[in-house]
């Protein structure tokens, strides 16, 4: 009896963990207005669920850009009308809503979701309906080009994962003079694995060697054992691509164990939570990012002021990327021969020297990746001490 009870309990608990994943109901009330005098742009973002902060931040940036364009007279005299849905951070929901936006709401472009998983779920729908989808923050390499074939209707306005990993490897070799490195990656996260792979390749190409490669799973808080394991080895830098939730405690524990080597990461570090979690250990930590709020470029300063006025907080990279993405779409719509998905797609692929707050870029027509600069942000004693564009 006792054994049955415990087995039963273990099984029931498994169920409860699964139940925790189910989505909450959310109601949407799109404005089904007449299409004639407006340009309809669909927003398909994660407004609730585990990655809601990415989706919400992107939409805040998009809204600011739309208001600015509308106040200045719209796109070729037409006001922008945003039709916004919530994917609940669910990829299947992203597919359904993308279909709805394209077939029912007849939008000219869909912006979002923020994550690569959600974007990939839309590729088929976009090609079928011939309506472009654009993301400001999906960095997976195989999003725009899958198995060597270009996804014609898929675009992004941020750089991709391999560019981040490659840049971090070059920064380690050239600026930090590193010849040996340790990689600690999140093995349950494509983003982290992608960055690790490209760092590995470039660092070796630069003549360096990877002395150890460790892995953890999302949600890990205890890094002491893997850090103790690498502590006995000699290395110049640690590459720790991942999200701030895990990177923060990992950095804290590394510094407490007396590991002083510089730690590098990717744009997943971009959150004030990183500094809170890592505490005083956040020194000699560098990460690649899309944009820096410390930038003194007049366009960036102007954006920061406008965003602060509208939202009462400093914009982060997702806000800035969302803002740039809408401006990029508006620019393509204004240049398109006619207001249809395929004409807008051609205009997007043709974008040259677009000036955004995350940098000036041109769209590479063969990959649909923007050719743009990357920013290195370095922390010392818990505050940002280095900002370099590369």
């Amino acid at each position, binding site marked *: 009896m*006792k054994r049955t009870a415990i087995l039963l309990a*273990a099984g029931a608990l498994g169920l409860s963990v699964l139940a925790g994943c189910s989505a909450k109901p959310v109601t949407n009330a799109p404005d089904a207005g007449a299409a004639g005098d407006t340009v309809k742009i669909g927003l398909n973002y994660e407004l609730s669920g585990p990655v809601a902060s990415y989706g919400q931040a992107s939409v805040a940036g998009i809204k600011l850009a739309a208001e600015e364009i509308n106040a200045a007279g719209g796109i070729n005299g037409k006001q922008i009308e945003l039709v916004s849905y919530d994917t609940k951070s669910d990829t299947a929901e992203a597919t359904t809503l993308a279909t709805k936006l394209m077939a029912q709401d007849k939008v000219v472009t869909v912006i979002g979701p923020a994550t690569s998983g959600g974007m990939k779920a839309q590729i088929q729908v976009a090609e079928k309906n011939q309506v472009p989808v654009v993301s400001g923050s999906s960095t997976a390499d195989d999003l725009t080009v899958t198995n060597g074939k270009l996804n014609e209707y898929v675009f992004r306005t941020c750089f991709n994962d391999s560019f981040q990993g490659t840049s971090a490897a070059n920064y380690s070799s050239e600026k930090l003079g590193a010849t040996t490195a340790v990689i600690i990656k999140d093995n349950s996260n494509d983003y982290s694995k992608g960055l690790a792979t490209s760092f590995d390749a470039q660092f070796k190409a630069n003549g360096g060697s990877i002395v150890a490669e460790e892995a*953890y799973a999302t949600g890990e*808080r205890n890094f002491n*054992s893997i850090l*103790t394991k690498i502590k006995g080895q000699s290395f110049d830098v640690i590459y720790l691509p991942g999200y701030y939730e895990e990177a923060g405690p990992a950095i804290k524990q590394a510094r*407490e164990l007396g590991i002083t080597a510089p730690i590098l990461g990717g744009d997943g570090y971009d959150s004030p939570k990183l500094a809170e979690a890592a*505490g005083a250990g956040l020194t000699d930590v560098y990460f690649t990012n899309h944009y820096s709020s410390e930038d003194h470029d007049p366009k960036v300063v102007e954006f920061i002021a406008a965003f602060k006025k509208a939202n009462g907080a400093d914009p982060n990279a997702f806000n800035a990327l969302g803002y740039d993405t809408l401006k990029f779409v508006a620019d393509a719509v204004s240049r398109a021969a006619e207001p249809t998905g395929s004409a807008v797609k051609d205009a997007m692929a043709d974008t040259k020297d677009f000036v955004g707050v995350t940098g000036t870029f041109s769209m590479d027509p063969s990959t649909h990746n923007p050719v743009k600069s990357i920013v290195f942000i370095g922390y010392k004693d818990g505050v940002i001490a280095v900002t370099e564009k590369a």
Partner: protein
Amino acid sequence: MEQLAQQLINGLSLGSIYALIALGYTMVYGIIQLINFAHGEVYMVGAYVGYACMTFARLGFFESLLIAMVVCGALGVVIERVAYKPLRDSTRIAALITAIGVSLLLQYTMMAFVGADVRTYPALPDYLTASFHIGGVVISAQSLLIIGTSVLLMIALQFIVHRTRLGKAMRAVSMDADAARLMGINVDNTISFTFMLGSALAGAAGVLVGVYYNSINPLMGVLPGLKAFVAAVFGGIGIIPGALIGGYFIGAAETLVSGYFSSLYKDAVVFAILILVLIFRPAGLLGKNVREKV
């Protein structure tokens, strides 16, 4: 050698946390044969209470620890009175499912109040951020704090269970609730007291983890709760010293697996231990195999 010593210290800190949580599981099981799956969430609430005390009320570590223990103890009693007491005469599975319901309720209520975001404890005073070097081994004040506090609390628990009238009542109810009632023991109050003790320990574990890992969220109780459950089963559920041994064993096993193999396997190893224990020694390490009348 140095690495092994360091890993064992890591394992001890982690094991202390598991042991503290496992004690609550095992005491409750010992007294009413219920696996209280809401226990991991009490630990989470403890972490948040400690966070609130240190961040908003700017209290010191020990005051916050104490307040978290008191609040969690009270929460344990409320959970028992509201959710489990009305079900005391129904089937075991009804109580078990209720426990899972309470667990989800606590998780998502907390999420509704504080949001799903990770929160971090404020900067600690210097005596808690220091570390000692012995050879190449680094022992942080925080791991000493975790181990020390846990050991003190466990000694206190042993004292309560074996040297006080309430402890005697607990042991009596655990052996035979009906006979205990005939002897004039207030069974309901004794059960509530058991929940209070167990929950207070879980609350303490929550604050210790908050200080140690510096990162708390409303779902943080799920996995440690499960592992503490494994620890309790490993030692023999219902047996207090078993929970201690189980907690330290699981902590050490997890640390050594990630230290010498890969950290990706450590959760699998913990649950493999659960399966092996259930197959070969279902009553646990210290348990006696008693044939139950069915």
